[in-house]
C-alpha cells in the first residue's frame, strides 16, 4: 500500500464553454475505516481560482495552508488576484523544493484567467511535474483507472455550464463507485465568469 493511497479520495476538473467544473468526493478515511463523510477536497483560492488536493490528508492540510499563505501575500503585494496558471507554477515550485523528501499530495488547479476568462486546468504529481490539459484532469491514486476510462468516454468539448455539471457529476460518481476508498457523496463547483455554482450530491453512501 502506497502512502498516497492511505486516505483515498478523488478530484476531477473539466473544461467547458467559457466555464470550468471541478468536483471531489466527500470521504475522509484511514485505510478501511471511514472517519468523516463531509470532507471536500476542493478549496477556493479566489473567485476564479480553485485548488483540489488528493493524497495524504495530513500533507494536504499543510500544503493548503502554505498555498493560502503565499496567495494572500501575493494579492497584498501585487494588489491583484493570482491567476490559475501562475498558481500552478507556484505550487509546482513549492513541491519541487521538497524533491528528496516530498509532500505526499497530488494537486489540481483550475479556474478562469485573463480578460476573456479563458478556462485553465492543470494537475501535478507529488514533486510538481505539471500536466496542462485542454479537456479534463483528475487526481487521486486509488480511482485513476476507473475515472480515466469514464471521462474519456463521456467527455466532449464546448459543453455549456449545465451540461458540464451533468457530465462531471456522472463521471465522478460512477468512478468513485469502483473504489472502496472514495465516495460518500460529492461536491461540484461550476465556475463561470459571473458566478460559481456549488452543489452537493448524494451518491452511494458506502
Amino acid at each position, binding site marked *: 500500500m502506497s502512502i498516497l493511497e492511505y486516505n483515498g479520495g478523488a478530484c476531477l476538473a473539466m473544461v467547458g464553454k467559457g466555464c470550468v467544473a471541478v468536483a471531489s468526493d466527500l470521504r475522509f478515511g484511514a485505510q478501511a475505516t471511514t472517519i468523516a463523510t463531509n470532507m471536500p477536497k476542493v478549496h477556493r483560492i479566489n473567485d476564479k481560482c480553485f485548488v483540489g488536493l488528493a493524497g495524504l490528508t495530513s500533507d494536504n492540510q499543510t500544503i493548503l495552508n502554505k498555498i493560502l499563505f503565499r496567495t494572500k501575500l501575493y494579492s497584498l*503585494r*501585487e494588489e491583484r488576484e493570482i*491567476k490559475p*496558471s*501562475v498558481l500552478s*507554477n*507556484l505550487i509546482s*515550485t513549492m513541491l519541487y523544493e521538497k524533491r528528496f523528501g516530498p509532500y505526499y499530495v497530488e494537486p489540481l488547479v483550475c479556474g478562469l484567467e485573463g480578460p476573456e476568462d479563458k478556462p485553465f486546468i492543470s494537475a501535478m504529481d507529488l514533486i510538481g511535474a505539471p500536466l496542462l490539459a485542454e479537456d479534463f484532469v483528475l487526481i487521486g491514486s486509488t480511482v485513476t483507472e476507473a475515472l480515466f476510462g469514464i471521462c474519456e468516454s463521456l467527455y466532449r468539448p464546448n459543453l455549456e455550464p449545465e451540461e458540464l455539471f451533468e457530465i462531471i457529476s456522472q463521471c465522478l460518481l460512477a468512478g468513485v463507485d469502483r473504489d472502496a476508498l472514495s465516495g460518500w457523496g460529492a461536491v461540484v463547483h461550476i465556475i463561470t465568469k459571473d458566478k460559481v455554482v456549488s452543489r452537493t450530491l448524494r451518491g452511494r453512501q458506502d
Partner: protein
Amino acid sequence: KKFKKNHEKNRGYRAHYPHFHVPYFRYFKMGESDYSFSLTTFSPSGKLIQIEYALSRVGKGDTSLAVKAKNGVVLATEKKVHSLVDETSVQKISYITNNIAVTYSGMAPDSRVLIRKGRKKAQKYFRTYHDPIPVAQLVKELAGVMQEFTQSGGVRPFGVSLLIAGYDDQGPQLYQVDPSGSYWAWKASAIGKNTVNAKTFLEKRYKEDMELEDAIHNAILTLKEGFEGEMNENNIEIGIIGEDRKFRTLTPSQVKDYLGELE
C-alpha cells in the same frame, strides 16, 4: 584562546562607544556635522547625513530623464565620456527584463550592483511564478535593497538614483528610486546635474495623453536645454518601450534622425 572584545580590553570609557570617533572633550557639544560619519545615527534635526551626502553625489552625476506617454515610456540620458573612451562600450541604459529598463545618475559601479541584483530578482520571480515580474514589484525590491544599505553596519548608501521604466499589465510606468530607498511613480522626471531646470521644463511641456513620439521629442528637447557643449548622437542615449512591451535602446543613427527632426 579567548579573544577579548573591545570593551573588555582596558581601553577606557570610549571603548564602549566605538562609533563615536570624536575626542572625549567634545562629547557634550554635538553639532550636525558630528553625526555625519556614522550612517546608523540620526542627527539632532532628524536627518541621516550620509544619505544627504549620497544625494549630493547623485546631483553631480550626468543628467538622466524620463517621460511617460499614454502608450509607452522613454528614457534619455547624457553620456559624457572622455574623448579617448570608446563611447559604444558605455551603456547607461540597461535592461532588467525584456520589458523593464533602468538608467541612473551618480556612481556607475554602484548602479551595476543594483542592476545585477534587479536582474536576479526578476528571474527569481519568473522561476517561481512563470509570470514576468510587474514593474512595481521590481521597484519595491530594488528600493528595499537600497534601504538595507542605509540601516546596516559597515556599509554605505548607494551613490545613485535610478529611473526605472517599464510596460506591464498595468500599462506604462516610470519610477524613481533614491539612495534612501524612497521611490515615487512619476509622469516625467529628471535626476542628476540639471534636475531642477529639467523638471521645470518638463512640467511646462507635459500633457496627460501624450503619444510616445511626442514624449521622445520632449525628452530630447529637455536634455538639450541643460546640455553643456554640442549634443550629438554619440553623447546621449535614448531608450523606449511601447505597446509591444519590448524595450529597445535606439542606435546612434536612429538618435541622429530624431535630433535632425528637432531643427
